[in-house]
């Protein structure tokens, strides 16, 4: 029996606002415990919530970018349960009237566009943090994170594999980063994902027993967790067993999902509209304003780069994955228009450099080790034959270390490529004289010697000679069977 995988993903994205959703506390990460708190976000008696307008704006941005219907009236609701990181004993969220519904995200699966529908996007507040490992006899609670705004983004169960799930998450994350509403850092918890996984016999439409997976703390964990769970479910069903609807935790060390300790009491959240908050009204004008201010999204930008600059899709993908990289790329083109070559340098050497220097961990890089205009100038110099591609690598490293322009570096290090035929001829002649035996071997038929001779020429000229020209001249000299005089090194006619 063949089974089909059915996966829905629930993402919680922390929003990049200055202040929390219902109070004026800072959302800044990494502060001393309970530093970013006030009576409102710590659930003191008598306090009341006041909604942060930016949170609504960010929700609308996300909704527009994912083609959702934006609710003209939406309501905030209370989700009631007891936990030490939930100071009011309820979370203010949305239930019956969320701000966005019925959207979609398109992902590319094996060069085919697949549409993953979104059920809803809604606003809610984050809980604080419980810390268990500092003491054995007690837990500690830090409420800095309580009240930080979140968007909950729920997909329909349209995802059919672990790979698609990873794809969807990366696409969603890039989009949120482009919208500048979330920095998408799974490891730090600003982008979280739970997965709902079930299987069903291929060809059927009824949904199988759904299992919720939690503790998926990285993209890899999501993909592996889903893969494991699919295997587990299929195995269980194939053995004639039955699955129970449950929540399972991903164990990254043992690489398996485990059932959560059976809860003694099921959650009954008793949702009801929050009486401390009035219905949130959103008018056409505001939506239009936000729509007009949306940045070009990754998918659209990729398509445009391909068509406008004729670069390969693979590069376009890499360049548009992050907004700062896409911006960098396009700004190089102001200085010098060789998109393909520049794309290569960016996705190759620049990416490697960023990774080595751990600069890729930032949400939006502004202090690049190599400025875009310098990179472009360097490529221009290559194109003009002023420097060889090989030596350019040296120039690149030097630029990264010093911040100087390529022209400055070339001048400083005397790396200017030698292109005039006379100098090249001179250099080649010297090499040929020094390696008479090899020359004779080549002329006797050993083609491989050519490469060796080229190498020697490069060495003798510190790589500065224009390789194409050197090749040309060397070939000519060898095939014409020129004899080189022993003393003068001059060609004898």
């Amino acid at each position, binding site marked *: 029996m063949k089974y089909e995988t059915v996966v829905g993903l629930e993402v919680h994205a922390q929003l990049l606002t200055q202040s929390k959703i219902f109070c004026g506390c800072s959302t800044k990460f990494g502060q001393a415990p309970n530093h970013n708190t006030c009576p409102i976000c710590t*659930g003191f*008696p*008598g306090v009341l919530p006041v*909604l942060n307008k930016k949170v609504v704006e960010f929700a609308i941005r996300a909704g527009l970018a994912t083609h959702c219907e934006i609710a003209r009236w939406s309501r905030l609701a209370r989700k009631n349960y007891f936990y030490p990181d939930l*100071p009011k*004993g309820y979370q203010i969220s949305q239930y019956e009237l969320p701000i966005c519904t019925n959207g979609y995200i398109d992902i590319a699966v094996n060069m085919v566009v697949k549409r993953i529908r979104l059920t809803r996007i809604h606003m809610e507040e984050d809980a604080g943090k419980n810390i268990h490992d500092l003491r054995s006899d007690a837990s500690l609670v830090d409420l800095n994170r309580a009240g930080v705004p979140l968007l909950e983004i729920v997909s329909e169960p349209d995802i059919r594999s672990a790979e698609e799930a990873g794809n969807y998450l990366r696409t969603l994350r890039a989009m949120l980063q482009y919208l500048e509403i979330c920095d998408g850092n799974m490891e730090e918890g600003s982008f979280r994902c739970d997965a709902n996984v079930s299987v069903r016999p291929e060809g059927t439409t009824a949904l199988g027993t759904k299992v919720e997976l939690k503790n998926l703390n990285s993209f890899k964990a999501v993909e592996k967790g889903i893969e494991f769970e699919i295997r587990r479910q299929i195995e269980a069903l194939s053995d004639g067993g039955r699955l129970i609807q449950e929540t399972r935790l991903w164990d990254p060390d043992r690489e398996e999902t485990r059932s959560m300790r059976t809860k003694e009491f099921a959650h009954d959240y008793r949702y009801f509209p929050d009486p401390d908050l009035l219905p949130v009204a959103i008018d056409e004008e505001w939506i239009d304003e936000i729509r007009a201010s949306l940045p070009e999204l990754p998918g659209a930008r990729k398509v445009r780069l391909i068509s406008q600059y004729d670069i390969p899709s693979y590069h376009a993908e890499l360049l548009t994955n992050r907004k700062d990289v896409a911006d960098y790329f396009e700004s190089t083109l102001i200085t010098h228009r060789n998109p393909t070559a520049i794309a290569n340098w960016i996705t190759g050497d620049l990416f490697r450099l960023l990774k080595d220097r751990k600069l890729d961990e930032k949400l939006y890089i502004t202090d690049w080790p190599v400025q875009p205009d310098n990179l472009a100038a360097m490529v221009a110099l290559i194109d003009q034959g002023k420097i060889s591609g090989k030596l350019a690598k040296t120039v690149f490293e030097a630029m990264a270390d010093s911040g100087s322009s390529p022209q400055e570096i070339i001048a400083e290090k005397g790396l200017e490529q030698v292109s005039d035929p006379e100098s090249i001829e001179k250099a080649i002649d010297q090499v040929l004289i020094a390696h008479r035996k090899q020359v004779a071997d080549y002329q006797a038929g050993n083609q491989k010697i050519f490469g060796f001779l080229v190498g020697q020429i490069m060495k003798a000229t510190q790589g500065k000679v224009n390789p194409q020209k050197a090749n040309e001249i060397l070939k000519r000299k060898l095939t014409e069977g020129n004899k080189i005089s022993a003393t003068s090194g001059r060609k004898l006619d």
Partner: protein
Amino acid sequence: MNLAALTLHEAGEKLRKREFSAQDLTEAVFRRISETEEKLHSYITLSRDAALKEAKQADERLKSDTNPRSLLGIPIAVKDNFLTRGIRTTCASKFLENFIPPYDCTTVKKLRASGAIITGKTNLDEFAMGSSAENSAFFATRNPWDTDRVPGGSSGGSAAALAADQCIVALGTDTGGSIRQPAAFCGVVGLKPTYGRVSRYGIIAFASSMDQVGPMTKDVRDCALMLEAIAGYDPADSTSANRPVPQYSASLTGDVKDLRIGIPKEYFVSGIQPDVEQAVRTAIRQLERNGVAIKEISLPHTDYAVAVYYIVATAEASSNLARYDGMRYGHRAYAKDLTETYMLSRAEGFGPEVKRRIMLGTYALSAGYYDAYYLKAQRVRTLIKKDFDEAFKSCDAIIVPTAPTTAFKIGEKTQDPLRMYLSDIYTISANLTGLPAISLPCGFDSEGLPIGMQIIGKHFDESTILAIAYAYEQSTDWHKRKPNF
């Protein structure tokens, strides 16, 4: 002259004329408190030292202020569900017995800024849940007119303190009648403003969609002056109305000619104490002599109001009281694990009425019951609102009794919760609909207990109900009567 017996407008005028100082006034009030408190138990916390300091500052301001506010130098009693920075705020609960708030509620902030002097925090039914102040975890307050009887609730402490001249004015909150009913039982004036008129920020929440802060005063003029001082938009309260505050005292002209008063027939059915009905009907006739036009109206869904209230208010309360979990403040019981800690802390911290209402509210919201109870009640609430919308098409105000009886004896209604709930029948609709309503004295029963009349107005039309109340008051001398205490 017994300074403590003065009204706000009398004391204010004399203070500004420098007939006596704020310190004199405050000391007189505290003398009165020490004379009477043992019998009355109106206060949970007294703030004498701080009050005298504030009085001294008020005197300085009185010297230099060219345009002193009406509350400058006036001693005011505050119900103990208003958060007061640095002053213990218990909400009459063991749970918060030692809680000292780190901030002031907006209303208290406003009053402090205008130079009012806080005498202390008055007793109430625990978490404002009750109609007699008997549900306080600490003690029951007595009615100054008859100390074997309740002062009403939940703002029983404020009402009793006011009636016994233990303060010049008082603050209460009203969720189901908790200002108006004790005002009626104690023979004073109590106003529940329109929902959203006064900020709820810093008031310990009971039922968020109904709670309102309001003044309790010795006469109607004082009430208007208090409302001017506390009403207004508060950006910290999303349910607060962004509307200008009229000068309410300016509407106290005594002229109520041609105002149309509706008398709902459903409010004068069986269950009402005969002399209460008689006193209210007599008062209505007096108002006719003042020039108003009376007509009978119908509020057909009156009978369902108590049921709606005890579903919706308890549902909201069950959620509002979840924060009292012993994790960050308040009482914590030491138990074997987290769940036990929650359960024991709350069981030990809350009294029986609070527990009862939390259970009721939790039930009404729980899976399988939400539609049948909470949602249904909210639909009926809309019907009740429609009744009033319809009624107000043809009248400017509605007059009803405040309570079906006068003050009952201590312990009389505590055995049967439902019986206690039913005594809220006349006050509850104003909370469900958010309409403003005032109670003022309109007579005494055969035992000499005060009877209250209630005037309900349109949204944000406190001016009209104050005007009617004033006109009636000035035609009588009920407000001049004091308990023989």
